[in-house]
């Protein structure tokens, strides 16, 4: 039932913080130039935007710059926001496009600058069991496995990594991802399937 547990955590993490009307009101005020309203919007989505960019780049400093620039860009473009989609989806799209453009410029010059694992990682019994029983090297610690996982993620194409990040890490639905990536749901499912298949190959030493 590990999958069920994961889904529950994802839903909890990504549940909307505020009512849509409230958010729309903040957006309208921010469109009039009210920075305090925009500050509230940034606070609501900063963690998810940062996390998305971080999992795409595997670099804390790059993620910081790109997340901040995404919010600045969103404010600059706020007047063009008509409310056809949620502000959350709209700002996600800006951050994703900015990150993809950055990765294209960076190409293969990947420099990992990983964040530390929180305390919950070491207390996750399933992960501890995975590390102690499934890895060929018993002395492989959590940090090493974290590096291997990130290296495997970086081997994926940008589109595949984005789908895995948004769905399997961030917990967004296929519909939300298709809206953010501006493609149909079938494409999202297909990319997710091939991305997982590749990851399974890259991490075959650590999973069954």
């Amino acid at each position, binding site marked *: 039932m590990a999958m069920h547990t994961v889904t529950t955590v994802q839903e909890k993490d990504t549940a909307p913080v505020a009512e849509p009307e409230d958010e729309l009101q903040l957006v309208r005020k921010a469109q009039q130039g009210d920075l305090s309203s925009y500050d509230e919007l940034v606070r609501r989505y900063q963690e998810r935007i940062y996390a998305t960019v971080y999992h795409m780049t595997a670099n804390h400093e790059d993620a910081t710059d790109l997340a901040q620039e995404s919010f600045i860009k969103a404010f600059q473009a706020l007047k063009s926001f008509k409310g056809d989609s949620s502000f959350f989806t709209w700002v996600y799209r800006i951050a994703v496009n900015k990150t993809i453009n950055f990765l294209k410029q960076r190409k293969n010059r990947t420099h990992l600058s*990983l964040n530390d694992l929180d305390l919950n990682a070491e207390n996750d019994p399933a992960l501890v069991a995975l590390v102690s029983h499934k890895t060929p090297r018993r002395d492989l610690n959590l940090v090493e496995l974290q590096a291997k996982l990130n290296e495997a993620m970086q081997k994926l194409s940008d589109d595949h990594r984005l789908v895995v990040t948004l769905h399997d890490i961030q917990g967004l639905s296929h519909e939300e991802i298709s809206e953010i990536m501006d493609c149909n749901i079938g494409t999202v499912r297909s990319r997710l399937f091939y991305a997982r298949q590749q990851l399974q190959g890259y991490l075959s030493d650590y999973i069954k």
Partner: protein
Amino acid sequence: MEPNQDPGNELLHLISWKRHEQPPPGYFNHFSERVIQRLESGEASGPTGFWQMITDLLETKPVLAGAYSLGLCSMLLMGISASQSLLQTAGGYSESLTYSPAFPDLILSERPSSRGDVPVAYHPSSMNPVFPSEFLRVSYPESPSLLQPVQFQLLGY
């Protein structure tokens, strides 16, 4: 394996482990402040007017960016095909023209040569207007002194 088939809980569990990667404690306490500070320092102004609208649209709607580039490529191809058809038209027109040089070719053999020199054709043009001395000697053997040979000499050298 179908796209909806379970890829394995262990893989999903391993991927979900990335959620435990967190920035330093307190990192988000000042994140929005830094964004607002950058906006207040003038970064919000950026490009204005038409270009801002275009770049905003292209950034938020990748489909528009694709359509824009497709339009540019189409215009380029149309330009190439139009220039090729113009070249063909111009080529047909030039073939119908008769060539009439600014100077008629001077065939030395048409003039009597007392010294029996081998006739040489000389083609004066705007790019090469100076008659060579050989041409003068052969063409005007009776009065070569009437024609002053061309000499270029700078004073003081």
